[in-house]
């Protein structure tokens, strides 16, 4: 530790030396000012939270720090010295490591191979695999990151893959670690594991920049929080003296309803979406959903709770018609649609918000206008007699984007250029605007900021009030509980119980762990 500023060694952590400073960073993409004169400061052994709405510019700032984007102006200081970071190589040699929102791992290679890539231990001409495995094991041990160095990355869970990403940076001796929405894809248990790893890391002297939309998490682990809105720093606060409400207000610029308000369900609606003894296989051929029965009525939200990987994704896909059912049946408004594809089901009034927006929800290289017409391009007003009408597509897109507050609301923007949360809103805009009768929403608020969560929740409640039947699949217990009228718990591909929205954490937790009560209907 530097002994220069030994003025007041009173408050331990807060006085830790500055390891990183970004000063006056500005970055524009065409007309968009993604970063506008942003300055942040990171102290040794601390966790700095970055908070901001979707599209506020957090990922952009971090990509600048990691050398993926070059800033228009501004400077970066590491350990008090000004540095130039032109590419990730520069960043790595300065001890900066980054775990991206989207992983950059190589699925067919092993964990150890992924970790040592580019900095391989050698024995003569060959790669010293034993040493690679040993170094990996040592790092795992030291920071409590559980993962088998010999496993193929393709066989790992998302949480494990993330650990591999962290190990990659540690293997390259990162002292500053950037984590961009690391918890968006994790289960609650995995999130807890991650945070205990982060604790280990900071107590070892690493410094961390953490981006997350989950206010509770930030309050739990960070030391300081910098809030960004529309590319500008709004404020930097000490975590100790703040609250969720304060943060939400700073971030959105107005009061945010952190709880959902909804009318009690009317009840008595007819069944609009139903599954009967539905059996679905996963990509690996294993039975993912083993005989699921469910029925969603008009005017209700049926929630599906469960730990990730218990068949939620496959179930949703089978209901939406993008994955074949092994056996059993699916009904929309009483009609057997088991043999119908996604397109036919959509024409019967089914909307589907897939859990993986990046690959299943949007075509990244298409414009927003094209994406908006993705499911209905073959119907008027978008086309007639085999001709497509781009003007009609753009007009409809512009309307939808404005209605769902997608930023930028530009129909000609490439979908891939939008921030994660805005991509999610663009999907919702497309799915909900067609006045569907049945909505399947898988993880509708993953990676979305609190303001937008509030907005999306309100949309779902509104659809419910209009008599739509909504199936909500979410890993966020809080979300399932606050929106649903009834909750089914999925465990190992089977429904192990049904509870009301007033079920306790303990009840749900037990069911989700597979220790359910007998289902007595």
């Amino acid at each position, binding site marked *: 530790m530097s002994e220069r500023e030994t003025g007041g060694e009173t408050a331990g952590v807060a006085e830790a030396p500055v390891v990183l400073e970004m000063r006056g960073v500005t970055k524009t993409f065409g007309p968009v000012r993604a970063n506008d004169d942003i300055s942040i400061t990171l102290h040794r052994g601390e966790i700095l939270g970055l908070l901001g709405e979707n599209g506020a510019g957090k990922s952009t700032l971090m990509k600048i720090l990691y050398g*993926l*984007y070059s800033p228009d102006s501004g400077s970066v200081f590491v350990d008090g010295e000004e540095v130039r970071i032109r590419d*990730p*190589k520069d960043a*790595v040699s300065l001890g900066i490591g*980054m775990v991206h929102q989207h992983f*950059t*791992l*190589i*699925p*067919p*290679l092993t964990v150890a*191979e*992924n970790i*040592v*890539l*580019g*900095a*391989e231990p*050698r024995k003569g*001409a*060959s*790669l010293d*695999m034993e040493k690679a495995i040993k170094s990996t094991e040592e790092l795992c041990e030291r920071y409590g990151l559980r993962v088998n160095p010999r496993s193929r990355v393709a066989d790992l869970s998302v949480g494990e893959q993330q650990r591999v990403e962290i190990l*990659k940076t540690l293997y390259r001796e990162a002292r500053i670690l950037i984590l961009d929405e690391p918890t968006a894809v994790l289960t609650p248990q995995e999130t807890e594991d991650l945070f205990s790893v982060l604790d280990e890391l900071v107590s070892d002297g690493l410094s961390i920049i953490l981006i997350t939309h989950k206010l509770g998490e930030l309050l739990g682990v960070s030391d300081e929080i910098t809030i960004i809105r529309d590319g500008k720093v709004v404020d930097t606060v000490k975590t100790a003296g703040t609250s969720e409400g304060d943060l939400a207000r700073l971030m959105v610029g107005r009061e945010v309803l952190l709880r959902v308000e909804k009318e009690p369900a009317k009840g008595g609606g007819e069944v609009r979406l139903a599954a009967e003894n539905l059996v679905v296989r996963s990509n690996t051929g294993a039975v993912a959903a083993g005989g699921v029965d469910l029925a969603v009525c008009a005017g209700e939200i049926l929630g599906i709770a469960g730990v990730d990987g218990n068949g939620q994704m496959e179930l949703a896909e089978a209901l939406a018609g993008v994955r074949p059912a092994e056996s059993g049946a699916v009904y929309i408004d009483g009609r057997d649609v088991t043999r119908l594809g996604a397109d036919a089901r959509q024409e019967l009034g089914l909307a589907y918000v897939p859990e993986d927006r990046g690959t299943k929800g949007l075509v990244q290289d298409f414009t927003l206008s094209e994406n908006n017409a993705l499911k209905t391009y073959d119907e008027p007003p978008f086309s007639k007699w085999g001709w497509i009408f781009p003007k009609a597509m753009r007009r409809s897109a512009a309307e939808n984007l404005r209605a769902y507050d997608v930023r930028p609301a530009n129909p000609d923007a490439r979908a891939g250029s939008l921030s994660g949360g805005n991509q999610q809103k663009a999907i919702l805009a497309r799915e909900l605007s067609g006045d569907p009768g049945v909505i399947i929403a898988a993880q509708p608020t993953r990676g979305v900021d609190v303001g937008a969560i509030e907005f999306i929740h309100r949309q779902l409640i509104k659809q419910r009030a209009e008599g739509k039947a909504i199936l909500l699949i979410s890993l966020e217990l809080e979300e399932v509980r606050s929106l649903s009228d009834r909750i089914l718990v999925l465990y190992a591909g089977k429904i192990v119980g049904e509870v009301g929205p007033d079920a306790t954490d303990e009840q749900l937790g037990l069911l989700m762990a597979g220790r359910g009560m007998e289902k007595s209907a």
Partner: protein
Amino acid sequence: MEDFLGSLGPLLASTIRFATPLVFAALGGLFSERSGVVNIGLEGLMLISAFTGVVGAWYSGNAFVGLGFGLAAGLIFALIHALMCITFEADQIISGTAIILLALGGTGFLMVEIFGSGGTSPRVPGFKEIPIPLLSDIPLFGPALFSQSLLVYLMYALIPITWFVVYRTPFGLRLRATGEVPEAVDTAGVSVTRMRYFGVALSGILAAFGGVYLSMGLLSAFSEGMTGGRGFIALAALIFGRWNPIGAAGAALLFGFAQAVTVRAPQDVVPNEFLQMIPYVLTIVALVAFAGRAVAPAAIGKPYRKE
């Protein structure tokens, strides 16, 4: 029975001979495709090197000088392919096709320019068979496997060497990674461009060995269009062998066997034309049967562009 055993040795020997150019080209294709660049131009690279090899040997009177010419030509044209696909991000199939067309037209034209007439070139010194003492005395297998030319022995060695390079060296790890997720390679501080240039360059050199063996090992002269689709069969062997050196070599041997059968089968039983179809039919069958299940490198065919 006597007769059958008697013909087995020669059949095996010609299997090896027919398989040799396929193995070279398939292993070449492996380096290129593992780095993420499709090299459909193998056919053209083989043809060009078969020709330049003969030209080199013709002028120098020395087979090794010819080989040097052939390798240089294979490398140069592979680098053109690399330049098109990697630096200029051109479509890899189109660039490969251009190389094939260039090879067909170019060699045809230069035949006339250099040797005065098209068709077949004059005989040049080639790679003679060099029986390996002791090994070549093994009954049945000895003469087939160990009474071959130097290039065949090189081919034997190349199979395990390629396997070792691809699966056991840092270079191989980076190569495989580049063909799967180039972004990951880039963020690991390794240049994707460099890896791909290496991969394509190696494919040029190996395909050149295959081409030179055709014109100076199998024969001792160049004849127009002599590759006869071998570059494509090598690509099929690569897919059939799931982009694995051992698998690809095995598949190449199988295709070589099919060709050997074609040549050695009694002509009067089945029309010759049908027999000549066998290798190609086998290729189609192999592709249909295995293509679905084969796992190609994920980033194959896609140019890599940094944001």
